[in-house]
């Protein structure tokens, strides 16, 4: 990537994000700009990237400081209203087996509208959503997740469960008083061992919550250079369950959380073995009708660009590993599976009829995260093991 592009990128970032009157808020941006300027004449791009990466991954407060500045700008800049629902995450992509490192970004832009029927214990509704998301590498050959998607969804959903009973006026008064008492406590240990916390939970009885959603969707999927693209129309089923009740039976079905429940005991985070009902995996299934357009690979293999049916499954899981005095550590995972139904023989022979993609990460509330990804998304040519270090940046 040209060094000049890097320089322009950071100058733009500086002018947009860090244009504050308070000189103390220039500190971090100036730090980065100076490093880029000093490196340009004497260092290679690889060295510069290496220095940047080192800088960006060794300052745990970087993300917080950048975001604090964006919040300030948002108050005064009407231009950023346009980007209210655009999220951008800058990343360094590192492909281990080829020893390559590249900069890029992940973006998502989402407009989501829902209308509910006003029944608190069983909530039905309809939803409409426009979304666009994907990963863009500044050098496209370094994009391990070269899969961009834009489209609309329309459908219905239902939630059930939540609170066991409508509370009385007396209980609401009591809960209000307990809430203030608990808010005045100075440690989490004090809160969780207090009579107030016990009484609060006895009077606010939560139940399991369930979600089901069914949507129709039309989308365009493409690589970042649009050399491959396809139209997708299909139906999507989303399922979710949460065991909010204390000592929820549903939580014990969360088998994925068992090893982490043990870790929480070992590290003193939990006093007893308790799988987490709030961490039950979330699931989505889609059946799509796919129409390839300008898919040279497929055309070469099959001699045509005929439509085909595709199954897409996704399973996500996040749970607490351990909690320390000033930060928490989470484990995050996501598994995606794509399967072309009744694929032509030639497609099966070259393993393009199914794609599995798995990513896992450990993240700390102090800002650092490390992740691992293996597999491929539908447009990828081969399997890659990708390690990723980064920080996040968001317009909102």
């Amino acid at each position, binding site marked *: 990537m040209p060094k000049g592009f890097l320089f322009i990128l950071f100058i733009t970032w500086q002018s947009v994000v860090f244009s504050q009157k308070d000189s103390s808020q220039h500190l971090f941006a100036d730090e980065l700009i100076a490093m880029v300027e000093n490196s340009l004449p004497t260092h290679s791009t690889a060295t510069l990237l290496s220095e940047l990466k080192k800088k960006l991954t060794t300052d745990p407060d970087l993300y917080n400081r950048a975001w604090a500045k964006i919040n300030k700008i948002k108050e005064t800049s009407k231009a950023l209203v346009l980007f209210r629902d655009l999220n951008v995450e800058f990343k360094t992509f590192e492909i281990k087996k080829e020893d390559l490192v590249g900069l890029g970004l992940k973006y998502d832009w989402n407009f989501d509208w*829902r209308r509910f029927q006003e029944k608190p214990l069983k909530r039905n509704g309809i939803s409409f959503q426009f979304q666009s998301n994907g990963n863009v590498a500044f050098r496209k050959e370094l994009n391990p997740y070269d899969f961009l998607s834009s489209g609309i969804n329309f459908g219905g959903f239902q*939630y059930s469960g939540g609170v066991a009973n409508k509370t009385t006026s007396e209980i609401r008064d009591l809960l209000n008083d307990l*809430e203030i008492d608990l808010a005045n406590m100075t440690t989490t240990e004090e809160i969780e061992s207090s009579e107030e916390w016990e009484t609060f939970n006895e009077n606010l009885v*939560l139940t399991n919550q369930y979600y089901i959603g069914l949507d129709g969707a039309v989308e365009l999927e493409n690589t970042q250079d649009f050399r491959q693209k396809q139209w997708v129309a299909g139906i999507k089923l989303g399922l979710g369950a949460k065991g909010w009740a204390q000592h929820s039976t549903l939580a014990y079905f969360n088998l994925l959380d068992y090893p982490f429940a043990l870790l929480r005991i070992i590290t003193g985070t939990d006093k007893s073995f308790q799988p987490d009902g709030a961490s039950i995996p979330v699931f989505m299934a889609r059946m799509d009708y796919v129409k390839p357009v300008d898919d040279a690979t497929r055309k070469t293999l099959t001699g045509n660009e005929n439509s085909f049916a595709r199954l897409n499954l996704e399973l996500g899981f996040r749970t607490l590993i351990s909690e320390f005095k000033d930060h928490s550590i989470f484990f995050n995972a996501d598994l995606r599976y794509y399967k072309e139904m009744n694929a032509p023989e030639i497609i099966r022979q070259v393993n393009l009829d199914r794609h599995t993609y798995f990513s896992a990460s450990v993240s700390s509330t102090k800002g650092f995260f490390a992740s691992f990804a293996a597999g491929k998304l539908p447009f990828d040519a081969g399997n890659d093991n990708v390690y990723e270090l980064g920080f996040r940046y*968001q317009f909102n």
Partner: protein
Amino acid sequence: MPEQSSWSMNNRSCTTTWITLYRLKQLRKIFSEAGNMQMKDLKFFNPNLSFELLRQEASMLADMIDVVFVVGRGAVYEEGANRTQAVNMMTDILSNANSTVADFAAVNDKNYLFWNEKK
């Protein structure tokens, strides 16, 4: 997205938002330290999910919080607000990695009149 939000013990939306997130195991911080927490640090926010699945998680949590507020805690919707608006706005904030718990409470303050809260 709300303006930079104040986080105060005297604001019922702040205390009720905090205790609800605590009860739902989304955070484990004392009140005075919770306001600056970001959404990405709450338990539901899995950064590896596709965005549509993350939205599904956020909407599920928003739905639950609304039920706790209204059915469990006796909140009503502010004039001009309703369940659709309240849950949509909560889902937006929850899906935004960098929004803070204080921002979240500020949005709730706009949409809910909490029990015994003065207008």
